[in-house]
């Protein structure tokens, strides 16, 4: 059975998991970390960096480091979120050819799905290294509020990364899956997800036969652990300024170190009451004197610095419960997701609000990826029975006269579904009607997302309000939205199938896929060469170390001299192969080098 990986493609960090022998497991990356920063950078030398490496240079190479691409994926150029990102991002965001968003790194334009694909490719590699075999199938998670375009863009990113995305599932659903795995629970739960860059609260129903249903979801896409880090940085910068009169923000290297130290201190304060931030040689003063930053921060200070941020999350929880017409008492369990929920103050705030201790049975960083892996396994294993009932993240409807939005399918409706509504003409003798299909919650149509439009013609000439048009919305299990409009009198009908778009054309996706494949071939080849080179150089070093001793022992005979000459020739050939970066030749030379090394060791051993 083909392995399916579950990927939590996060705003700040991503995680990959798999179900092995029935046990869901998170796969650590090469550095041993179970999460990988969702960051991509291109260095001055044109080298692509993904993950921790990209994060470590995010401030010193800010113009060429992409973070939080998830906030842009599948969005239109003129959306408010994109405008906000253009104004606040350190990297350059430009308009794409299809009113989509492109990111410029070292003068090259990348589609947002292409950037996310680089992160997904990294996660794929992590899984492949761990499993020792190729992986192609994946389940990827997205926030519950993602619209169809954003979901499609995530799918496209998977395709560019060389993955067959067999399902896109909602993050809270995934966390709930992880929570409910192996338990026979029927509960209404709240998933409080406070990650690095976003906050989400979702209410789910876990029904009998492992049916998961998202009842409500809300959040803030610009509220996360990074905001807390920023507060700690401000505190450190202010303290340093008071002491030395120097603003550390003016120096990128200092700021990079501060960012790393602030995040580290924040994490440490979840388990200890105080910690020291020690950054020697943080900056040089005008008197050419290196200055050090050394400050102790305690948990209370961190809590004070982040109090309003925590309060904001509680306000969103309150609003979400109200929107879902639920009381706190209706929530039977609160599941904490996201690294920030390790902070004791947050756990306390959640417990205070929901009036119950949150469940600590799921790993905050891993549960979403684990849930995706569980779903992936269920989809490929016929023996497992699991039904995920996902809901429409946003309401669907049409634009009516006056620029209003008429809702047909409400937000959070379980899919598949269909709804029908009768409309009438709005003008005298109207013979055609334009059906504008939209998605969103605003009463004003212009504030919602346009999905598509079509015109139903051939209507009977009649006074306004007398011709009846039946409009039907249908969403199938794959999330495809179809809209039909029918003149009830004549039976004439017209329809549209709304296909979500990531903003990339098929040709562009194909080209990006080819580019990604080439990159992988090059990367694998470089890794292969580096590995062979290291091995060859190690043996060459050993041989050279033994040369004087062996020469002394065998140089007296012709045979010995000949052997020495041959050994030298092998070393020279190996060096030449390394210099030419010829991986096949280097690998071929390793055998000869190993033989020579064994012989040398034998000669030395016999004479001692």
């Amino acid at each position, binding site marked *: 059975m083909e392995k399916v990986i579950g990927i939590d493609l996060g705003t700040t960090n991503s995680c990959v998991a798999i179900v092995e022998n029935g046990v869901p497991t998170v796969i650590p990356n090469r550095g041993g970390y179970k999460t990988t920063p969702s960051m991509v950078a291109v260095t001055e030398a044109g080298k692509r960096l993904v993950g921790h490496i990209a994060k470590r240079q995010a401030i010193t190479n800010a113009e060429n480091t992409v973070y939080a691409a998830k906030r842009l994926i599948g969005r239109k150029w003129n959306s408010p979120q994109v405008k906000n990102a253009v104004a606040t991002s350190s990297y350059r965001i430009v308009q794409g050819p299809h009113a989509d968003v492109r990111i410029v790194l070292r003068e090259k334009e990348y589609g947002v799905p292409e950037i996310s694909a680089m992160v997904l490719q990294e996660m794929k590699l992590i899984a492949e290294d761990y499993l020792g075999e190729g992986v192609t199938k994946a389940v990827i998670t997205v926030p519950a509020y993602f619209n169809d375009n954003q979901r499609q863009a995530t799918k496209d990113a998977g395709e560019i990364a060389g993955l067959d995305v067999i399902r896109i599932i909602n993050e809270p659903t995934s966390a709930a899956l992880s929570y409910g795995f192996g338990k026979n629970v029927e509960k209404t739960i709240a998933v409080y997800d406070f990650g690095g860059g976003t906050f989400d609260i979702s209410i789910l129903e876990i029904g009998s036969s492992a049916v998961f249903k998202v009842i409500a979801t809300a959040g803030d896409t610009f509220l996360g652990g990074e905001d807390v880090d920023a507060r700690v940085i401000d505190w450190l910068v202010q303290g340093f300024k008071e002491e030395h009169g120097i603003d550390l923000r003016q120096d990128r290297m200092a700021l990079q170190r501060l960012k790393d130290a602030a995040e580290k201190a924040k994490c440490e304060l979840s388990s200890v009451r105080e910690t020291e931030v020690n950054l020697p040689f943080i900056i040089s003063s005008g008197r050419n004197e*290196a200055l050090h930053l050394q400050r102790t921060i305690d948990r209370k200070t961190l809590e004070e610095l982040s109090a309003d941020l925590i309060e904001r999350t509680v306000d969103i929880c309150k609003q979400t419960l109200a929107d879902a017409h639920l009381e706190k008492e209706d929530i039977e369990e609160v599941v904490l997701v996201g690294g920030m929920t390790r902070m004791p103050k947050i756990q306390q705030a959640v417990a205070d609000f929901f009036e119950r201790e949150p469940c600590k049975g799921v790993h905050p960083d891993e549960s979403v990826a684990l849930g995706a892996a569980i779903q992936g396994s269920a989809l490929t294993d016929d023996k497992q029975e699991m039904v995920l009932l996902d809901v429409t993240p946003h309401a669907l409807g049409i634009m009516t006269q006056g620029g209003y939005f008429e809702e047909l399918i409400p937000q959070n409706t379980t899919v598949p579904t269909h709804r029908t509504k009768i409309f009438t003409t709005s003008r005298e003798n109207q013979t055609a009607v334009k059906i504008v299909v939209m998605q969103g919650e605003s009463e004003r149509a212009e504030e919602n997302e346009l999905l598509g439009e079509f015109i139903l013609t051939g209507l009977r000439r009649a006074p306004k309000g007398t011709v009846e048009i039946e409009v039907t919305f249908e969403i199938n299990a794959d999330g495809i939205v179809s809209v039909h409009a029918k003149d009830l009198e004549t039976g004439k009908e017209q329809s549209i199938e709304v296909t979500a778009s990531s903003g990339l054309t098929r040709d562009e996706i194909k080209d990006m896929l080819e580019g990604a494949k080439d990159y992988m071939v090059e990367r694998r080849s470089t890794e292969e060469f580096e590995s062979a080179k290291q091995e060859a150089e190690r043996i060459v070093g050993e041989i050279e170390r033994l040369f004087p001793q062996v020469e002394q022992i065998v140089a007296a005979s012709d045979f010995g001299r000949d052997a020495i000459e041959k050994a030298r020739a092998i070393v020279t050939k190996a060096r030449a192969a390394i210099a030419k970066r010829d991986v096949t030749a280097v690998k071929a030379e390793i055998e000869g080098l190993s033989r020579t090394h064994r012989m040398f060791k034998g000669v030395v051993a016999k004479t001692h």
Partner: protein
Amino acid sequence: MPDDPPKKPSAGPAESGADENDRPTVNPPFDVEAFARLASGPQRRFSTEAPTQPPPPGHPAVELQQVREQQITVTNEVELEAARVASTLRSQPPPAPPSALSMADARAPSSPTVPAVVPPGRSITPTSIEAAVLGAIGSSAGPEITERTIDDPLAEMRERFSLGDYTGALEMSELILAEEPGNLEAAECGENCRSVLEQMYAARLGPLERVPLVVVPRTQMRWLSMDHRAGFILSLIDGSSSVELILDVCGMPKLDALRILQELVQQKIVAFR
């Protein structure tokens, strides 16, 4: 990012090591001390040109060298120190014309009024060399020695490059380019210098795949002598990142990063596995 602070004029062991590394030049094929004495002579005008070949027999420098060798049996540490001071003082250039390109020379840090050190209670009968030296000291109210002026920066750059003083040539090329950004010769020379220096520092560091480690205990780190750029590089050394990776992520020009890393290794702050 603020400009790099100028190097400290006084040099501790680490600093002096760093200076040497900044000037990875082969020892000149002539006697520096003799040349300095010659330069300090009343008839000799200062020139930035250093001989590139040993002077021929009969050349004043050789004659001076012979004199010096003859005096070696009677020369003591005091005399040598005095000679060093004199040569330092005398080898400073005359005041420059106002139009000349000026360059602060951090490697000429000594004070213009440093007296020769003579242990108290000891009388010295001056030899002819000593007399010359002492005379030189006496009349050493020379120009400001922390400033050096160069009439022809391009010639200076070429000269330094030909002498293998790539750091100096690079500095000159950068100065020229600051004044004249379109100067192709300076740009090319600068590029060549960078390339040579990068190779040199990389060669000193060894294979770039190696993983450096900080060997100085964290508690003692603040007592080290280094600047914030070295501090930043040090912060990137985590025991798992290779030199190559550090160069990629540090965000500094490769040459600067290599030089700093090499200095950290030389100062035994950083070692390899």
